[in-house]
């Protein structure tokens, strides 16, 4: 047993941190709300250039032949920077569906080259049962990917695309003409769902980690009563709680990143479920606490803390919010008792 990132994975982490920091220093994340998709496109093409969009896809299918853990390293680092790219939706959820649930090979290869694919969900961003109606993390011109009623990942041309004004302006949702869909029952489809849950968990972990770092910077430098606010226990304990959440999110997320790909399917689903529901709640809590530490500036448009909290809510809701994973876990516990 070995639970730690490899040297390569640490370098990967560093690369994304550097690329994002540089990009967002020139153009703050908040610009992505109204730049016609320019910032998103710029970062996405950088990720394609670094061969990181096809990490989940084997080389002979046009991908980079990485692991889900590699993809989670990228997703976490992107989350840290509130990156406005569809990495979880496209590079993890859609790619996993296409790969594990028998999707068309040419689409999988095109996805790795950076072509736009959105994963299709239900109206509450749950995994669709009969019809899929919402394109998640939509990009202009994207095709949709959903599990068909016969259990195969299927690509759809999207029509009647109608943008939804939702909580997170950095990851767009669009209503689309409903396409027929089926619930995950084959092992491949279940594994794809576990990968999507884990990918979302990684992004949520990154969002939380970024909130902690911002809060810490501020708590060290902001002075009241002639001392840094970070020297007061009331503020320290908020920061310690954030650290606790971030580190436990990391433990379950990276555990799931291995299990979802390699463990027997029941265990894969169990760990991925725990990752999704735990990190969803924790990331929201951490982003909220981060705003509390920042004080007034944290609730302005000027600061990106609200964008972070918005992204946390969206990714918490995605793929069945808390409920789908919690029901799966409860079922398992009852079966065993």
């Amino acid at each position, binding site marked *: *047993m*070995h*639970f*730690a*990132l*490899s040297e390569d994975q640490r370098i990967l982490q560093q690369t994304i941190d550097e690329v994002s920091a540089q990009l967002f220093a020139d153009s703050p994340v908040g610009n992505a709300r109204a730049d016609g998709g320019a910032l998103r496109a710029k970062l996405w093409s950088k990720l394609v250039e670094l061969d990181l969009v096809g990490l989940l896809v084997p080389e002979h299918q046009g991908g980079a032949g990485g*692991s889900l*853990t590699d993809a989670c390293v990228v997703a976490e680092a992107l989350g840290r920077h509130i990156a406005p790219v569809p990495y979880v939706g496209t590079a993890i959820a859609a790619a996993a569906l296409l790969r594990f649930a028998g999707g068309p090979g040419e689409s999988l290869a095109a996805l790795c080259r950076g072509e736009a694919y959105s994963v299709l969900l239900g109206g509450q961003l749950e995994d669709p049962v009969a019809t899929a109606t919402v394109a998640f993390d939509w990009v202009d011109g994207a095709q949709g990917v959903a599990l068909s009623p016969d259990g195969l990942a299927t690509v759809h041309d999207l029509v009647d695309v109608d943008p939804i004004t939702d909580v997170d302006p950095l990851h767009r949702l669009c209503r689309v003409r409903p396409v027929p869909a089926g619930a995950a029952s084959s092992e491949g489809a279940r594994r794809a769902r576990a990968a999507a849950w884990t990918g979302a968990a990684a992004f949520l972990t990154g969002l939380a980690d970024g909130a902690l770092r911002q809060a*810490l910077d501020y*708590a*060290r430098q902001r002075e009241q009563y002639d*001392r*840094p606010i*970070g*020297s*007061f*226990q009331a*503020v*320290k*304990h908020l*920061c*310690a*709680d954030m*650290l*606790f959440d971030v*580190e*436990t999110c*990391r*433990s*379950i997320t*990276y*555990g*799931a*990143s*291995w*299990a979802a790909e*390699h*463990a027997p399917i029941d265990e894969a689903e*169990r*760990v991925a*479920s*725990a*990752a999704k*529901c*735990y990190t969803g709640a924790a990331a929201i809590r951490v982003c909220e606490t981060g705003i509390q530490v920042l004080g007034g500036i944290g609730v302005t448009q000027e600061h990106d803390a609200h964008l972070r909290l918005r992204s946390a809510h969206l990714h918490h809701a995605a793929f069945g919010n*808390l*409920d789908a*994973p*919690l*029901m*799966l*876990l*409860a*079922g*398992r*516990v*009852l079966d*065993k*008792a």
Partner: protein
Amino acid sequence: MDLRDSPKEARFRARLCAWLKENLPTDPEPTVLAERWPYMREFQQRLYRSGWVALSYPKEVGGQGLGPMEEAILSEELGKANAPSLLPLGHLGRPLLSYGTDEQRRRYLPPLLASDEIWCQGFSEPQAGSDLASLRTRAVREGDEWVLNGHKIWTSYAAFADFCLLLARTDPDAVRHRGISAFIVPLSTPGVTVRPIVLANGDEEFAEIFLDDVRIPEANMLGRPADGWRIAMDVVNYERGAVETGYLPKFERYLSELAAVVKTQTSTPDRAILRALGEAAAALEVLRMHCLRTLSDRVSGAPPGPESSIDKLLMTAVEQKLMALSLSLLTDTTAPGRAEWFDRYLYGRAGSIYGGSAQIQRNILAERLLGLPRSPG
């Protein structure tokens, strides 16, 4: 990342499971500590004689010369097999191993590891709880003896123990933690009085120790003078690790007991109950993965440090979540087991107090891991 057993780990696990199949006690674990203690001790002695305890201690002191990985497998399989709990004292051999002289290790470690002699740790005092460095128990040198006077409290299992690893102030002029030394105190020494503290659930796990002109030989100091603080911090870091103390299997057992309760109540539990069960199961997965991560760090040679405060907070959070779940499930006053679960719930409140309160753990995280400035005062 690779969460599978290595071939060597898999062989160890298979041998252990085979042994457990043949050797588990058939009578149920008593719920009252006074009866549970001899039951646990007897099973642990049997484990030890067959080579399943003290796995990560060197062979020459009675261990098996294996590593933390095997300890974790042991803890996991004991839990799966519904085996009796281990005595939560494995971490007390650590300071003897790291700081003991050859003679101390030879004399004390083998019987400690075999559970033939029971140890306890005398750290807290009535006036020195969270602020442990302010402890007042004094050790004064007289000829070739140390004379101890003071009062210890919250000492786990002192009523069952033969020896106490005790902190006392040897240099009243040195600042706080610099004047503290560690001693090996036989509890049979004249002048020692042990008085059990009855916990809210009726258990007598904790006790007070009164030291009244207790004379122990010079050779009973552990480490050098003023090593006491360092030794204590090592002990608490081990004590805080879930890997070392085997909480995981206990909590897993609680969860499956609670799931069984749900099944006796209804065949179609409502959504709120399912959510609560799911949340407890998720919390256990988080604890399991966090333990694996900590364990992996330990295997690669990193000793436990301030991040063990995260482990401690996590253990407490999981325990208290399970207890909250039990309260929400056992609302019927006539439900069997309701009073026992309430006692467990009461005991669960201690988790965020002992071994460094949850507030102290947060201070440690904020100051030592996040580098925030020290608080005033």
